[in-house]
């Protein structure tokens, strides 16, 4: 997967080229992390079970993070996804419970997510409110709406277990391998193609890079952003349905737990916080990293509460590192240190 491998240098070219590959450095961090936990928590990390459990739990936040990655590429943000997850899960759960439908329930859940994304896109583009604020408001708005419509109930749908849909989406291939991982990888590949090889992705790159440039070369930023938020809502709904299938349950705060992990995955993965560049492969690995850190710390005997602290710490560290790699002058601390440094 070559993002922007440029054969400019020939000397240590191979190493250079490796790090220019989309997501290569983050993949290395992932491997290191696994190696560390193999030492600190050998019991868990030397068996295969923990990896199967990662592949069962990571796909929903990963799929949501893919959508948010594209949003970030365009220099926007989408914080509404926890409520979209809840809405899609609720629609899916209640339709299955009431009418015993699976595929229709699935389509309706996805449509609801797409619809909510469409409204998000309209709010952001037509009202001109910065998307960070607009989608934060929509997080509450949609979340409140779902809670009211559902009457605050929780749903258990154990009967979904054993349906064709359940085995197709979240079954265990060969009795061990979670099927949702296959779907997550397929969607990742699709999103990679969309960002790096499709004209829609190119429009997003230029919109995030420089909106005025996008305008004068004839990109319709409003239309592309509406499409973008619709796609993000659709992917969040997909994540929600997978989550409900895996846990065979719905409760209204279901998506809330993803708020940090998803955003962290996007930016730890190397997608620019300034817009204009995004790393889909980075997001895939980073989604795992976040989950692995959580599980690894717990398995290493560190108290559960500390995991959030560490994720927050890794988050801020990696975002800073990515910003420095992109442009050191955008990090004031680095700029200060540089000017203080005597120029020999």
């Amino acid at each position: 997967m070559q993002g922007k491998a440029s054969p400019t240098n020939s000397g240590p070219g191979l190493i250079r080229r490796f790090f220019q590959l989309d997501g290569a450095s983050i993949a290395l961090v992932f491997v290191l992390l696994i190696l560390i936990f193999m030492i600190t928590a050998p019991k868990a990390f030397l068996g295969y079970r923990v990896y199967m459990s990662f592949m069962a739990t990571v796909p929903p936040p990963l799929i949501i993070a893919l959508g948010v990655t594209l949003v970030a590429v365009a220099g926007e943000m989408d914080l509404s996804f926890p409520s979209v997850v809840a809405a899609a899960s609720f629609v899916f759960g209640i339709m299955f419970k009431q009418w015993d439908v699976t595929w229709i329930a699935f389509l309706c859940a996805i449509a609801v997510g797409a619809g909510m994304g469409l409204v998000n896109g309209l709010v952001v583009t037509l009202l001109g409110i910065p998307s960070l604020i607009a989608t934060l408001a929509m997080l509450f708005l949609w979340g409140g709406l779902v809670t009211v419509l559902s009457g605050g109930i929780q749903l258990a749908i154990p009967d979904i277990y054993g349906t064709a849909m359940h085995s197709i989406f979240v079954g265990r291939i060969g009795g061990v391998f979670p099927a949702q991982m296959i779907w997550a990888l397929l969607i990742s590949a699709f999103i990679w193609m969309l960002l790096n090889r499709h004209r829609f992705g190119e429009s997003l790159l230029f919109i995030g890079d420089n909106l005025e440039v996008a305008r004068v070369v004839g990109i319709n930023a409003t239309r592309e952003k509406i499409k973008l938020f619709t796609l993000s809502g659709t992917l969040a709904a997909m994540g929600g349905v997978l989550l409900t299938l895996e846990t065979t349950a719905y409760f209204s705060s279901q998506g809330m737990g993803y708020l940090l992990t998803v955003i962290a995955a996007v930016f730890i993965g190397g997608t620019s916080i300034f817009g204009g560049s995004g790393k889909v492969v980075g997001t895939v690995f980073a989604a795992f990293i976040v989950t692995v850190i959580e599980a690894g710390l717990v398995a290493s005997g560190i108290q559960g509460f500390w995991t959030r602290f560490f994720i927050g710490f890794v988050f801020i560290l990696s975002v800073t590192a990515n910003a420095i790699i992109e442009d050191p002058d955008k990090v004031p601390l680095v700029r200060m240190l540089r000017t203080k440094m005597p120029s020999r």
Partner: protein
Amino acid sequence: MADQSTADQPIVSLNNVGKAYGPVVSLQDVSLEIGSNEIVGLIGDNGAGKSTLIKIMTGVETPTTGEVFIRGERVDFSNYSVQRAHELRIETVYQTSSLGTKQPLWRNFFVGRPLTNAFGFIKVREQKRISEQIMRETIGFRSAGIDVNTPVGRLSGGERQGVAIGRAMHFDSDLIVLDEPTVALALSEVEKVLNFIRSIKENGRSCIYIEHNIHHVHAVCDRLIVLDRGQLVLDCEAKSMTYTELTEFLRDLHFRGDHDTKVAS
């Protein structure tokens, strides 16, 4: 005008064009023509309306009043866009750069009109091949370490303008509009850009060149158009005025003070 042959028909002609942004009138009653194979210099103070004028010609903005004709055909502004202007063989290099600095050269050459298959997927290999060709043949880049994968942000200012102009020339345009292409460039870089402009004419195309440095304009242009507070105040052959006469004319304009055109009643 209607019975003229296509050869001497102007590429673009404006008829009493005006543009207001709310109460701010940036153009008023401007009429002009751009013929084939000429370099037209567009001069005027900051805020005179130069960028606005070309944005109207190139489909970025819609005029509030007046008409625009392209090769004799009236432009329907409900249906005019950057894409349409491209189809009508008008290309623009904008003042605030028309390039995405984080994006590689091969994307910047084709942005807005990528070569795609039926599903909208970009033919990356073909774009790279053609970009390479533009770089070598049209722009004449020989800088080591620059290839089609280089992000534009790594190029010098002059090289960036070269990319933007090379892109405009590649797409078989009749008219290339340059909005202050030498702004913030070192002298040696300016010389490169002026050479690009000369090569536009050698290629048989026309060019509108917006520039604050009167010296540059006078050196390369065939015709001069001066805008002052949204109004056209001079349209003449460059040869009909010496450099000194031109600067004096502009200075007088500057000190002549107000004619009440800025705010609409």
